[in-house]
C-alpha cells in the first residue's frame, strides 16, 4: 500500500502545484480565487493521504480543521470582492 500512497501523494502535490500556478497567473481575480479554493481542497486530501503514508492517521484532525478554515477564508474573500472587484 505504501507505493500507492506515495504515488497518490506525489500526484496530489502536482495537482496542487498546477492550482497554485493558475492562482498566480490567472487573468481575473475570480480565477485566482478558484485556483486558491482548489488548492485548499487538495491540501485537505494531501494531509489525509500523507497521514496514512507516514502511518499517523491522527493527521485527519488537521485535515478537518483545514477544511473548515479554507471554507471560511473563501467566503470572507468573496464577500469582500462581491461588489468591489475591478475586471482587468
Amino acid at each position: 500500500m505504501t507505493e500507492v500512497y506515495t504515488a497518490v501523494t506525489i500526484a496530489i502535490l502536482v495537482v496542487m502545484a498546477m492550482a497554485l500556478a493558475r492562482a498566480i497567473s490567472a487573468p481575473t481575480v475570480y480565477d485566482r480565487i478558484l485556483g486558491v479554493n482548489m488548492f485548499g481542497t487538495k491540501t485537505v486530501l494531501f494531509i489525509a493521504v500523507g497521514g496514512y503514508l507516514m502511518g499517523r492517521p491522527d493527521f485527519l484532525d488537521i485535515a478537518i480543521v483545514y477544511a473548515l478554515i479554507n471554507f471560511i477564508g473563501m467566503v470572507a474573500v468573496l464577500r469582500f470582492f462581491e461588489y468591489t472587484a475591478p475586471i482587468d
Partner: protein
Amino acid sequence: MLILDIISSILLIAGVFFGFSGALGLFKFPDFFTRMHAASVTDSIATILILFGLILQTSFDINTAKLLFILAFLMITSPTASHALAKSARHGGLLTLPEVQAKQQERTH
C-alpha cells in the same frame, strides 16, 4: 484484506486522475464559468473517491468517523463556495463565452 487493498488503490488512483483532469481543465477551458465547472469535478468526484479509498483502509474505528466528517464538510462547503464564487463573478460583471460573442456580433452589425 488483499482485495480491499486492490479496491482502495483503484479508488485512490481514479480520484487522483479526476483531480488531475480538473486541474488541466482549469487551464484549458475558454471562459470563467466553464473553468469553474472543471474545478467542481475535483471538488466532488475526486474528493469522494480518495476519501472512500482511505475509508477502506480503516478498521471501522474513529478514523472512519473522521474521514466521513471530512467528506461531509467538503460536500457541504464546496457547493456553497462554488455558489458564492459564481454569484460574486456575476455581480462583478464576468460574461460567459456565448454572451461575449453575442455582444461582439451586435457591435459589428
